[in-house]
């Protein structure tokens, strides 16, 4: 944002004064808003010691850590499976044979159109209906895998398609087979351009583990509800959710920073071909990230 924006020129003295006034006014406005929220918290006793003191205890911290661990475990397993799922279905979609292409396209499009929660319900209720006990972890993981795997398949496909066609042509011209073209020429180039988008999708996956809350998988948010629902501590929902929210923001933020850093780093490497698939700036990504 340091260089000139599309919308306005570098400000002159008058514009600078106006911007300064607007800046001060907006800071005042935002501070006032935050102060009002803070006062509301204070007024309703959210800062009372009783509501916060249980967080001093190792037992409660262990509970939170256990929840965090459950969240990370589900996210980790689902991430690995989703990447595999994505790789398999992306290669099927890139295949020359329609026998592979058509079903893969159908699956990927279908799972992207079904709400994740419904996929998780499928994973949870349906095996139970047929008398097959399934751990809630796996119900959650299956849902996450199907949805995020489908999105990742699209990222992979777009990444490979983004490598200029001349690369493929050249590779074929020197006598490489299709498999070799994909493995030796396209993937290494595409991978670099896809990485930021992949990491962004993994942040989404991590966030979506919170849906486990609805099928009572004991992840972080669920643990938060247990802690927040303790009558004896005056139902400390507000402090608990603030803490849980901070944990989510910290973890997802770290991953986001990693994605941003990766993008910067990859951007500096002299490219032979292929644009880096923008993780943050292309509008399409905003749709994917949700």
């Amino acid at each position: 944002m340091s260089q000139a924006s599309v919308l306005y020129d570098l400000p002159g003295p008058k514009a600078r004064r106006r911007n300064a006034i607007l800046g001060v006014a907006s800071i005042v406005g935002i501070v006032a808003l935050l102060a009002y929220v803070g006062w509301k918290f204070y007024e309703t006793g959210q800062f009372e010691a009783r509501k916060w003191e249980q967080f001093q205890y190792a037992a409660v911290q262990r509970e939170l850590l256990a929840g965090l661990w459950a969240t990370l475990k589900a996210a980790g397993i689902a991430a690995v499976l989703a990447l595999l799922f994505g790789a398999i279905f992306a290669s099927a979609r890139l295949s020359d044979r329609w026998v592979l292409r058509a079903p893969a396209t159908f699956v990927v499009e279908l799972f992207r159109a079904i709400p994740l929660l419904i996929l998780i319900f499928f994973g949870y209720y349906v095996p139970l209906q047929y008398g097959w006990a399934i751990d809630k972890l796996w119900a959650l993981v299956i849902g996450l895998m199907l949805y995020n795997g489908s999105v990742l398949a699209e990222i992979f496909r777009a990444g490979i398609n983004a490598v200029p066609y001349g690369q493929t042509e050249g590779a074929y011209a020197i006598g490489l087979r299709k498999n070799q073209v994909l493995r030796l020429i396209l993937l290494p180039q595409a991978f670099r351009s896809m990485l930021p988008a992949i990491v962004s999708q993994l942040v989404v996956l991590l966030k979506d583990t919170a849906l486990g809350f609805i099928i009572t998988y004991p992840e972080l948010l669920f643990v938060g509800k247990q802690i927040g629902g303790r009558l004896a501590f005056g139902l400390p929902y507000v402090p608990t959710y603030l803490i849980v929210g901070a944990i989510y923001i910290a973890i997802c933020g770290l991953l986001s920073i990693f994605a941003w850093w990766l993008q910067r780093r990859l951007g500096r490497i002299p490219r032979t071909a292929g644009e880096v698939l923008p993780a943050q700036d292309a509008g399409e990504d905003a749709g994917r990230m949700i």
Partner: protein
Amino acid sequence: MGEFFRVLTDNWTLYRDGFTNTVQLFLIAAVGSLVLGTLLGAMRVSPVPALRASGATYVNIVRNTPLTLVFAFLVFGVPKLDVNIDYFDSACIALTVYTAAFVCEVIRSGVNTVGTGQAEAARALGMTFAQVLTLIVLPQALRAMVPPMMSVFIAMLKNTTIAAGFSVLEAGAIPSYMSERGEPQFAVLLWITIGFLILILPLVALQRFLERKWRVAR
């Protein structure tokens, strides 16, 4: 197979009410997040650093928070602050607050796709800010914005199901009612899936169409 159709016909009112509420929730939150998101987007492309920073903070906080947590905070946390919001309204607010961050990003990146030279040339011609915005920047930016904006709203339509965990009878809440009625869950879920496909596929088709049509023009 007969069983499969019976599940729908026997519980028709539940499905109808559920999906009606889903669509209502979607439309209200879509308008809400478009308004809030545009405001935030304007903040993020404004010349005032303080506004830019607060817009960015909002986006970064919300984007890294699970929607389920936003819901939980509104339903269990906010009432503790002596603010009483109805469940349906809470769901609308949660979806709006969350989706606005993504709408904001779409708008910001849409504006940024327009080459700086375009606006510079326009200003060199002596156009005012309003003219530059309405005649030069927006017509080009909107084309870049519409397809991703549609993916944001498609995602939001799917996200309405989360309200099920927070006492709103919408499509995502149907399974728990049905398990109370002892209906086979597979059929129940399949019908919900079909319902969502009916809602979403036209949107996806429209999005693809616009994307293809305008990609050439760009």
